[in-house]
Structure formats: C-alpha cells, structure tokens
C-alpha cells in the first residue's frame, strides 16, 4: 500500500511543475521592501557610487515616460497628413468649412471617391501604372544586379573611372540631362542608320519605350543608387562561393545566376521594392516623356483641372483650394493605397535591406 502511494506520488510528480529556486530579480517585493533593500545596498557603497546609483534609478524611472511622449508626438506629426486624408476623403465638401468638425465628419459620403475615380479614369490608369512599374522594376533590378556584380568582383582597366560615372549618376540631378534625353526619344534614330535609310525619325514620346529602354540598360530611375547597393551587397559575400562554382565548371555568368543571386535575395527584394515605389511616385521624369496622363502620378499631378471640369464644369473655374481639397485628398488616398499596402506587408524588407546591404560600409 505504501508502495503504491509512493508510486502515485512519483507519478503525479511528473506533471507537477518543478519549482525553481526564485532568483533575486524574480522575487516579488513590495515597494517598501525594495526601498529598504536599496538603502541597505547603498550603505555599503562609497558616496560617489551612491550618487551614481541614485541618478541611474531616477533616469530609469523618468526616461520611459519622456520617451513615450516623444515617440507618440513624432508619430502623430508624421501620420497627421494621412489621418487628415482619411478623414477628409469621405466628407462632403460643405463639411470642410464647418468649424465644429475636427476629425469625424457628420455626413459620410462616397461621392468624392466616385468623382475622383471617374476623373482619373482610375482603373485603367492603375492597370497601366502597374504594368509599367512592375515591368520596369523587374528589368531594372536584373540589369542593375548584373552591373553591380561586375563592379563588385572584377578587376579591369578603367574600373575606377566607370565607377565614378555610377557615382555621378547618383549626384547629377535629372533636370540637367532631361532635354538631350527628350531629343533622343523624340527623334529616335536606331543604330544611327535609320534616318539615313528612311530619311525619317521615330517618335517615341508617349510610348512606354521611354521608360523601358533606360531600365533595360540599367539607367532607369535612380539606377546609380541601385547599382551601388548591389555592389555593396555582392562585395559582402565570400569570394569562395564563386571559386567553388568555378572549380565545378561554372562559367562566371552561370555562377552569378546560380550562386550569387540566391545569396543576395534580400537585396533583390529591397531594390525591387524601392524601384516600384520610385517609379510609382515619379512625375518629374515621366512628365517630360508622357504628354498624356498615363500613370497614377501624372494623373494626380494634373488632377485639379480634371476635377474642376467634372464638378464645377469649367477647367479654369476660380475655386478655392479649400473647397477642392476633399477631392484631392480622396485622390491621394486611392493613389497611395497600393503602395501603402505593399509597405505595410513588407515593411521589414524596406528597412532591413537599406540597413544591411546598403550604405553601411561605404
């Protein structure tokens, strides 16, 4: 009987949690006890050490509150325009001048949104933009990666000068070279013989080629920066990878595709994301190559005239910015929504890529 009891005890013991010896920091003390312990500790120290500990305790108590206020405040400042955007996108224009309305409109309406979608020809423009953006970004990532790899791993004559050109691509503002580029596309002369044969030029303005061709040759939007990022990230990978591939009989290009690309996956994703964002946002370069509203950014830039036609019936109507702001804000909202969703889903890839592969270790 006693045996059974003992066995039982042992058996239930398995399920019982082992009680650990509580460590010093885990012991729950009342405030009073804590204070007393602290005092006792202080007594064995020199006055200098006492002062240090006291100050440290004070800082540790006050700082989190201070920090919380700062972080919250700054987040609010950043998010303020977005909150305002959401708040005003769904309110009728008349509610804008109602001083009793701060954030939550009295009447919710979807009519702004409907107007804007009509004025922007939104779905078609969105389709265009997505195709153009994703296409250009994919092409650009591939070409920039190849170029970056060339600069990262190979020694050849003139490398320094050529890399200086890459740096210049980052430094030179696009405005300087925009006109010659425009002339290049307006009077496109393939291989410099097309004109000699036909006596004519090809007009590429308003075609997607103006975006694809630079991307295809690693000269698209901010390509210099992307080449730089890729170079940094490939330089960070061990050389033994390619040596092993070469011993196994890979040609350098196969080695690049098979070995280096999979190892630099995060850089590829980062560059791709940034490329998408910058193509999405670009209105400065594309406005000189597209005279029609082809992309979301261009439509948004020229929106106010369209809205005026649609809502007030006249493109030159003298309308106060405050009256038209609800339409502008809802247009902004639907224009950044895709990018915002992308950012929220892949937030870590945006920041970590920059931090890891990026400018560190210049």
């Amino acid at each position, binding site marked *: 009987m006693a045996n059974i009891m003992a066995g039982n005890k042992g058996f239930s013991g398995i399920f019982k949690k082992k009680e650990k010896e509580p460590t010093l920091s885990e012991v729950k003390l009342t405030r009073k006890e804590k204070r007393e312990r602290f005092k006792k500790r202080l007594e064995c120290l020199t006055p200098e050490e006492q002062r*240090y500990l006291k100050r440290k305790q004070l800082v540790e108590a006050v700082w989190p509150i201070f920090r919380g206020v700062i972080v919250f405040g700054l987040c609010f400042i950043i998010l303020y325009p977005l909150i305002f955007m959401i708040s005003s996108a769904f309110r009728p224009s008349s509610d804008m001048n109602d001083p009793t309305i701060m954030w939550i409109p009295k009447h919710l309406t979807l009519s702004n949104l409907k107007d804007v979608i009509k004025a922007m020809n939104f779905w078609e423009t969105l389709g265009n933009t997505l195709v153009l953006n994703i296409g250009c970004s994919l092409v650009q990532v591939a070409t920039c990666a190849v170029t970056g790899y060339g600069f990262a791993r190979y*020694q050849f004559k003139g490398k320094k000068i050529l890399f200086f050109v890459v740096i210049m691509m980052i430094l030179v503002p696009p405005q300087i070279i925009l006109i010659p580029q425009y002339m290049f596309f307006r009077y496109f002369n393939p291989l410099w013989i097309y004109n000699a044969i036909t006596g004519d030029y090809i007009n590429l303005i308003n075609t997607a080629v103006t975006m694809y061709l630079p991307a295809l040759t690693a000269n698209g939007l901010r390509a210099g920066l992307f080449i730089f990022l890729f170079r940094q990230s490939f330089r960070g990978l061990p050389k033994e990878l390619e040596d092993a591939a070469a011993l196994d009989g890979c040609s350098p290009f196969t080695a690049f595709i098979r070995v280096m690309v999979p190892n630099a996956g995060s850089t590829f994703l980062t560059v791709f994301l940034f490329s998408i964002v910058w193509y999405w946002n670009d209105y400065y370069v594309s406005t000189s190559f597209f005279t029609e509203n082809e992309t979301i950014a261009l439509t948004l830039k020229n929106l106010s005239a369209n809205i005026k036609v649609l809502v007030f019936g006249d493109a030159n109507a003298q309308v106060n910015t405050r009256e038209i702001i609800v339409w502008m804000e809802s247009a902004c909202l639907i224009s950044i929504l895709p990018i915002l969703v992308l950012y929220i889903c892949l937030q870590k890839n*945006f920041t970590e890529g920059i931090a890891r592969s*990026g400018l560190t270790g210049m």
Partner: protein
Amino acid sequence: MKRLNLSYEKKKGLYGYGFIALWFVGALMFFIVPLIKSFYYSFHVVTPETGYLDIKPLVDNLTGKTNIFLNYKNAFMTDPNFRQYLVEVLKDMALNLPVIVVFSLFVAIIINQKFRGRTFARAVFFLPVIIATGPVYAIITGDLDTGGNSEAAQFSTMFEADMVDQLLEFIGIYGFGTTFTEMLTEITSDILNLVWKCGIQIIIFLSALQGIPASAKEAAAIEGATSWEFFWKITLPYISPMILVNIVYTVIDAFTDPTNKVMERLLSVQNEWKYGYSAAMAWSYFGIILVALGIIFAIMNKLVWYDD
C-alpha cells in the same frame, strides 16, 4: 582557329567588361552623351525647331561680340530670381542639415532602445520615404500648383505649430529683435515636418548603432559611465562615419529635390524654350553643390573616427 592565350587575371577582366557592358551602353546613351550635350548647350543659344535643335553661338547684344559665357553671366548678373533662389536653397540646406542629422540621430537612439510598440514606431518613421517623393507629398504640403489658380492660398495639411512664437510669448519676450525672431520662426516653422525628410537617415543611424560592439557597451557600464558620457565617448565615435554618409545623403537629397526653388526656376526656363540658358543654370547649380559637398567632406573627414 587559334585560341587566345590569356592569363586568368585578364580573362576575369574581360568577364568584368561583359558584366557591365549593358550598363555602359545605356550610360553612354542616357547619361554621358546627354551630359556632354547639355554642357555644350550651356555655352550656346539653343532653340527647338522641328526635327532638330537650333544651336547658335552666343552674341552679346551690347558689344556685338560672341561671348560663350554669356548664359552664365546672365544667370548670375541679370536674372531677377536665380541668384536669390540659389542663396535661399543654400541657406535652407545649411539650416536644415544639422537639424536633420541631429534629429535623426536622436530618433535612431530612441528607436534602438527596447520598448513596446517599437516595430510600429520604426514603420511610421520610415513611412515618409515611401510617400515623400511623389505628387501626393506635393499635394499634402500644398506645394503643387493647383492648375493655373495661382491666386489660391497654398493649403497645407501638414502638421503646423507656431511653436517659437508661442514659446517666446509664454516666456514674456515680445520684441526681441525682429530679425532674430524671424530667423527662429523660419527655422522652427517647419522643423516638425523635417521628420518627413529623415526616414533614410534614421535607418542608416540605426544600423550604425546596432554595429557598436557589445564589448564597448559592457566596458562603459563597468566603468560606471552615465548615458550622457556613453553617448559622447562611445556612441559618437563609433557612428561618426555614418554621420558623414548621412550628411552627404541629405545634401544630395535636398539638392536634387524637384520641388526646390532653383529646380522650379530651371523648369520654367526650360518651358520658355531657352535650353542653353537653363543648361547654364543647371551646371552652375551643380558646380556650387559639388563645391559645398567637397568642403563638407574635407572638414568632416578629419573629424571622423574609424575603428581600425
């Protein structure tokens, strides 16, 4: 067929050319040639005709002689706005640069600490990078001209606070030298919205902060360094190279921003079909910025401390 007898090194070099060949062709078409062309334009009168650009030498109306530097001379001497805008942009940059760098360092140190909601805060601080390059930003800051209606007041939906005015009045200072208060308001009027320009800088500082070796932290803790001392003696030296990187980044970012005044003036000159003149403006602007960057680099490079 005779096989080429190349050393391994030379072969590798050829492969290097192979890897960058595509980019080089593109750079020639879209960067180097346009760059040289625009430099050439800047010394000439360039007007667009159907099928080509009409390029004529510059003739000084007063003397009747050709003067290839006339575009540059006009930009600086006779243009009513260019010099003023240039000074404004440079002044803005000089004022904003320290604020941006100090501020992003401050934010990076805060976000580097462990607290609840850190991931969220990080996401929010980087958010402006996603938005701030596009037309949405121009609309919410009220920068975008709303379609020929230039009379309309600029309507910004950014966070605004006349902090300094209120603060000074709160302390009881009213007429404390108008230029001084004006300058202060100028700096602080959009100081809060500089947060919008700090995204990348914060991330760069953050990764630098995480690169400070744990041994240095431990040593400082054992020696009983206060966090103030820790910042000056440990943090700052370790991240000083990144301060330089951030300064360069900030300058380039501010200067290639299409919404700054010089850029806007450039665009308006281009829209008047004065291509040569706008090229001259662009090149002098570029030159000035390069000099500014050079000076910053020379000064900072002496202050930077490298680990090895």
